[in-house]
């Protein structure tokens, strides 16, 4: 049985046929969420006009499309390089985003610098959009730190590992935005599996209660490690939000332009006091959950083939080609950029400063702590004792 079967006929995108969907947004809580997908570029790379969303991406000209394509190529290359680094023993683990480039780049490029992102651990492309130092993406996975960057430098919290917990943080942050009288927006990324968590449901309750400027960006990538989305959701996930009083929209998550459009609309709503929006970006995790996972144990190879035919990069390349925007000079420059980024990533990984033992005691508290200081003192003296007996080491 394919994943579509597990979805109990909920109309997961079927390539071209998804393009026939009317793709309307659900304008408010009064209207129950429907199952139609917003799609502007279909799986075969054909741009379809859209009565509502075309206006939201009217500024996206050929050059802008080329930039979106470049972004997706680069983040796919980052992903491949990081996977290689893991296989070479330089990273302990890596969570690939292969297949989800459009969802992350389309939404990530819609954000303003003063918006704040609360993501899970797979949003490396969003971090790229936020301007993260490349090596910082790897810091956690190399085991050199518990997080890669100072969240305030790029206005993006470091990856959240507890499934769904970050949705509440985004909602609280958005409540703070209200108190500040600002027009920034908190954007939270999570997956289909996270929507089963109480935290995500409570976040929607709070967001609706306080009309918080938060965008819930759910990447339904069909798999929560080995568990298919059909195990967690009997109806399309986007349908849940209107029950909380939150307008929702389902978008083709492999269509970068559609993802940009729906995210822009949600951000505009939040900035103008219209409260939260729930976006379900229907995409597919083409790789394993992490490099420690083996998806051949639980999913059909045919399903992967089906989704490979809806690849987010391939369809945009086809569209660019049809517009005469995929000339050799441009393609070469994209490839050169990806190669340069990959080289920078690798260099940053290999040259990363190693932590020292006393670092384990740092930053537990912001103020001195006598008991912890005592433990650190004992441990440092213990370590120093080996220096006096160099033949012996910790066993």
């Amino acid at each position, binding site marked *: 049985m394919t994943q579509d079967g597990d979805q109990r006929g909920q109309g997961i995108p079927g390539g071209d046929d998804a393009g026939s969907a009317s793709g309307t947004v659900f304008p408010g809580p009064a209207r129950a969420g429907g199952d139609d997908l917003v799609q502007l570029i279909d799986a075969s790379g054909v741009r379809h006009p859209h009565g509502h969303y075309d206006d939201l991406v009217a500024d996206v000209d050929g050059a802008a499309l080329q930039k979106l394509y470049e972004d997706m190529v680069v983040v796919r290359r980052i992903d491949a390089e990081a996977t290689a680094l893991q296989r070479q023993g330089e990273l302990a683990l890596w969570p690939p985003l292969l297949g989800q480039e459009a969802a992350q780049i389309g939404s990530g490029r819609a954000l303003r610098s003063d918006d*704040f992102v*609360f993501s899970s651990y797979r949003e490396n492309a969003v971090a790229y959009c936020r301007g993260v130092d490349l090596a910082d993406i790897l810091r956690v996975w190399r085991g050199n*730190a*518990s*997080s890669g960057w*100072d*969240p*305030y430098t790029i206005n993006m*919290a*470091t990856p959240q590992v*507890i499934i769904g*917990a970050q*949705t*509440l*943080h*985004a*909602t*609280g*942050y*958005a*409540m*703070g*935005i*209200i*108190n*500040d009288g600002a027009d920034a927006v*908190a954007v939270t990324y999570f997956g289909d599996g996270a929507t089963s968590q*109480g*935290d995500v449901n*409570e*976040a929607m*309750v*709070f967001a609706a*209660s*306080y009309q918080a400027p938060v965008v819930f960006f759910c990447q339904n990538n069909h798999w929560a490690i080995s568990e298919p989305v059909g195990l967690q959701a009997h109806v399309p996930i986007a349908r849940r939000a209107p029950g909380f009083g939150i307008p929702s929209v389902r978008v083709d998550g492999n269509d970068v332009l559609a993802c940009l459009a729906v995210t822009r609309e949600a951000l505009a709503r939040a900035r103008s006091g219209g409260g939260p929006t729930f976006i379900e970006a229907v995409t597919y995790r083409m790789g394993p959950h992490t490099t420690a996972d083996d998806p051949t144990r639980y999913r059909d190879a045919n399903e992967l083939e089906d989704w490979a035919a809806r690849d987010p990069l391939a369809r945009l390349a086809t569209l660019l080609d049809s517009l005469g925007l995929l000339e050799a000079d441009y393609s070469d420059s994209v490839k050169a950029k990806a190669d340069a980024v990959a080289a920078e990533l690798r260099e940053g990984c290999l040259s990363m400063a190693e932590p020292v033992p006393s670092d384990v005691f*740092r*930053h*537990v*508290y*912001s*103020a001195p*702590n*006598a*008991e*912890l200081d005592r433990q650190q003192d004992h441990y440092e003296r213990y370590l120093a004792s080996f220096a006096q007996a160099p033949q012996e080491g910790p066993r």
Partner: protein
Amino acid sequence: MSTMTFGRAINAGLRRAMDEDPKVVLIGEDIGKLGGVFRITDGLQKDFGPHRVLDSPLAEAGIMGTAVGMAYRGYRPVVEIQFDGFIYPAFDQIVCQVAKLHYRTQGAVRMPITIRVPFGGGIGSPEHHSESPEAYFTHTSGLRVVSVSNPQDAYTMIQQAIASDDPVLYFEPKRRYHVKGEVDEGIDPTVSDMGAARVVTEGTDVTLVTYGPLVPTARDAAIAAADDGLSLEVIDLRSLAPIDFATVESSVRKTGRLVVTHEAARSGGLGAEIAASITERCFDYLEHAPVRVTGFDIPYPYSKLEFHHLPDLDRILDGVDRVMRRPNSLSGLDVEGAAQ
């Protein structure tokens, strides 16, 4: 200096903290118009508005998780958990986020969140309204945990907790809310240390360590023991994480005997930590093994039996007798100096 109840002292401390820092926001269930089920936040929403005193949906994880987000944004949230037994839905957010974010982000993100928890028994309530969950939190690195025992400390320490850049669990002994005491509202909360234990009564024979609701009971025990010719030194820990071991240690070096008492269950409790740490640090000064007088290892019982579970004056004195090798409930009345 004015006389006020314990609950009123917390209210006054909250009000002062809100006056002094516009980033202090309160969030919890029923804390707005109602002023909280114990009226601790009485009048604050009226005076500071609904954006600073937020009545929340009934979801503790949601309250805690949104407080984390507000702290990210630069606020100092003060969370009210309505009753001790209702804190568990928020446990994940407290342990995985509130406690760890400063460490996780190498100091970049601070979590100056105060989590107020009415705790402990003795008010005749049904299940989930009388628990002492402090050890779950003292076991969690990254949190500070305090418990207040009198109106003055309640007033001062709520301000210190709010001013702390580290998250603080602030345990309020609900059965003492109506106790009155003198409070100096002019006191500068920055001059004293929330982490310092307080010697309640000085003594020379036994060190009696406790915190929160049992501090008055311990003080009464010291008075009763004095009639019996015993001098107890009562220590109110105030801070449960970190523990001011220096104060306890110097007392035990003087007395040679340690009794710890708390309402919480015994196994893995604060008493175990204090007994172990003091034994490690001043074994050679001890005349007797430390003695714990605690709640039993049972779920909190129904109210007609709760005073069999809660340590009281007599059980504390029985523990004092044990540490003094006097006849006690474990030795049998006719066996002088028997082992426990």
